[in-house]
């Protein structure tokens, strides 16, 4: 005896004056339609062709990655191009890149929750999912690049028969704690946000295995107002904890380089510069994913052009901060005048047979290309944003690669200068890791609520005030 929910009348004209007030809220929707559109993405069984296509593509990448990793574990890290002096390269670059991408997710959902930004609602779940899977992919690299990966557990302080502990002055041990804490907190944050939506899916799905799984995952959530109150408090607290966590994790990741003695690495600007870089590449990835999902699942009502617009503005802002980072690094070094530092920064710019072409490419990618976002039309066009974001992602990867390899290549003694040439295995490991990221993401898109249904409901006009919304 389901009664048909009445259609919501348009109540507040001035709310949607064309273009003036950013419209982050789905207008023609009510509770029922919001719930149905979002949960149907997960519930209806029809396989969307391009979802299966993407799954197969990334499945191929995933299996190349598995193959490369097997060969790596059998033969040794020698299959990559690393040598003495450049003992780190693609693996650590990809680690920093992936974890950088991960940071935007939690920053969007946590920091913007604290700032009560309404536009976060429709993209926060996508961003958090991206964080979880990016950090999972990133966490792989520090293990893969170990010389003897089967002793990775020596990095953890477990009580062992040798009574020897990890050495806590090393940034790599900090990394272990930082990355695992970050993964856990993001997972909690993401899962907690999803409990009410899982309850919705549980209630709307046909009886069967999926209903039971959703039921288990929803942990018996029965939308009780008392529960909501405690849920909101905990959610806010988690957001409050996650924000400083994001800053600290990427500062710790940057301390992998900052605590060292390598000229070009031991810069005091590294922590903020890396965090800005992380947010920058993170937003780029979020934009890419949002645009793709928006088109694939017709979420134009939820992820409106205004969302893209505000994210583009943030992309531009962080691009400027990162560019400021480049500028300050160069000027402070030349001002300081230490012969080793000056050599590294100078040869980065001029040695075109080695790293200079990478340096100038990344300057264009990270500094010049995002300037197009000053124009409103560019910010609102999906195609331009998509391309700019991909370029920024490439630029940020090159930036980490340049920092790591060029500083190690020519640091102190001329006799130990060396050059890094990537091998096919380097490239395959990196490309394979992209597959490793997208497989769980596609499964998330398929089986879990894509947007935060409960928060979107809360945003509906009249959801709060005495309006008519059902």
């Amino acid at each position, binding site marked *: 005896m389901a009664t048909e929910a009445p259609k919501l009348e348009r109540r507040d004209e001035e709310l949607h004056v064309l273009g003036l007030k950013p419209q982050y809220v789905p207008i023609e929707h009510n*509770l029922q339609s919001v719930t149905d559109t979002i949960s149907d993405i997960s519930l209806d069984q029809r396989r969307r062709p391009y979802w299966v296509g993407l799954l197969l593509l990334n499945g191929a990448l995933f299996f190349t990655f598995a193959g490369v990793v097997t060969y790596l574990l059998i033969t040794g890290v020698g299959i990559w191009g690393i040598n003495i002096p450049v003992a780190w390269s693609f693996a650590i670059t990809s680690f920093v890149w992936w974890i950088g991408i991960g940071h935007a997710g939690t920053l969007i959902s946590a920091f913007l929750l604290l700032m009560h930004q309404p536009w976060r609602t429709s993209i926060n779940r996508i961003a958090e999912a991206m964080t979880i899977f990016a950090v999972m992919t990133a966490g792989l690299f520090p293990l893969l690049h170990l010389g003897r990966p089967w002793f990775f557990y020596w990095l953890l302080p477990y009580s062992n028969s040798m009574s020897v502990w990890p050495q806590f002055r090393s940034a790599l041990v900090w990394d272990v*704690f930082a990355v695992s804490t970050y993964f856990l907190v993001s997972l909690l944050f993401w899962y907690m946000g999803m409990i009410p939506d899982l309850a919705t899916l549980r209630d709307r799905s046909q009886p069967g295995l999926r209903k039971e799984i959703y039921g288990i995952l929803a942990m*018996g959530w029965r939308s009780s107002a*008392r529960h909501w109150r405690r849920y909101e408090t905990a959610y806010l607290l*988690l957001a409050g904890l996650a924000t400083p966590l994001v800053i600290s994790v990427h500062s*710790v990741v940057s301390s992998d380089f900052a605590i060292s003695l390598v000229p070009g690495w031991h810069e005091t600007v590294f922590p903020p510069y890396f965090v800005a870089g992380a947010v920058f590449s993170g937003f780029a990835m979020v934009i890419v994913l949002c645009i793709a999902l928006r088109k694939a699942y017709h979420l134009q009502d939820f992820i409106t052009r205004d969302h893209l617009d505000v994210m583009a503005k943030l992309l531009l802002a962080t691009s400027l901060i990162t560019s400021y980072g480049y500028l300050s690094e160069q000027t402070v070094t030349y001002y300081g005048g230490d012969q080793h530092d000056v050599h590294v920064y100078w040869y980065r710019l001029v040695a075109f047979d080695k790293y200079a072409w990478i340096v100038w490419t990344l300057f264009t990618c990270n500094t010049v290309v995002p300037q197009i976002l000053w124009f409103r039309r560019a910010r609102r066009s999906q195609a331009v944003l998509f391309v700019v974001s991909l370029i920024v992602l490439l630029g940020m990867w090159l930036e980490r690669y340049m920092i790591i390899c060029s500083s190690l290549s020519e640091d102190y003694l001329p006799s130990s200068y060396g050059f890094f040439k990537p091998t096919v295995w380097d490239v395959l490991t990196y490309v394979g890791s992209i597959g490793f990221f997208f497989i769980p993401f596609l499964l998330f898109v398929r089986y879990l609520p894509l947007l935060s249904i409960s928060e979107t409901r809360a945003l509906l006009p009249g959801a709060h005030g005495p309006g008519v919304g*059902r």
Partner: protein
Amino acid sequence: MNAQQRVHGLLAEFWTPEEILKATRVARQAGYQDVDAYTPYTVEGLAEELGMRRSRIPSLVLIGGLVGAGVGFFMQYYTMAVDYPYNSGGRPYNSWPAFIPVTFEMLILVASLAAFLGMLLINGLPHPNHPLFNVAEFARASQDRYFLCIEASDEKFDVHETAQFLGTLQPHGPIIVVPIEPEAVEEPDPAAKPN
């Protein structure tokens, strides 16, 4: 009577947040204590209507944070300076500046766990076999309907009286009696037939 024990409570359905707010206020003023509202999203002010005090979660998180930081720092201090002190790069055994990042991470970790587990524990979740799930209509509680439930554990609760009272709150649809055991398929209670 035996019907009394088998009943968990009475459920009334509403369609707008204002209705549920008013119904809850009226129920509370009528003296019912064990009242709970079920809404598809957080309705502003509903918790105050239900008379909830300040939640204990923040204090839990604070304790968690302090414990995390304490454990984090002591672990590092004990291993580096007490259990196996060795000279690493001329740095002192207790190089506390180097211990700060891990201490901070442990603080955040334990605090977050405290927040999440605290919320679950205090809410009594996971509780998959709650009597309310025996009511088919209640499935809409997580979608677009608002429900008010007065539980049998309330001392003023009487099946007929309370059903009568609920009827006065203009609910949409009949007052539903929430059975405790799921298999006893409850035929609609004739007495509570609304208009």
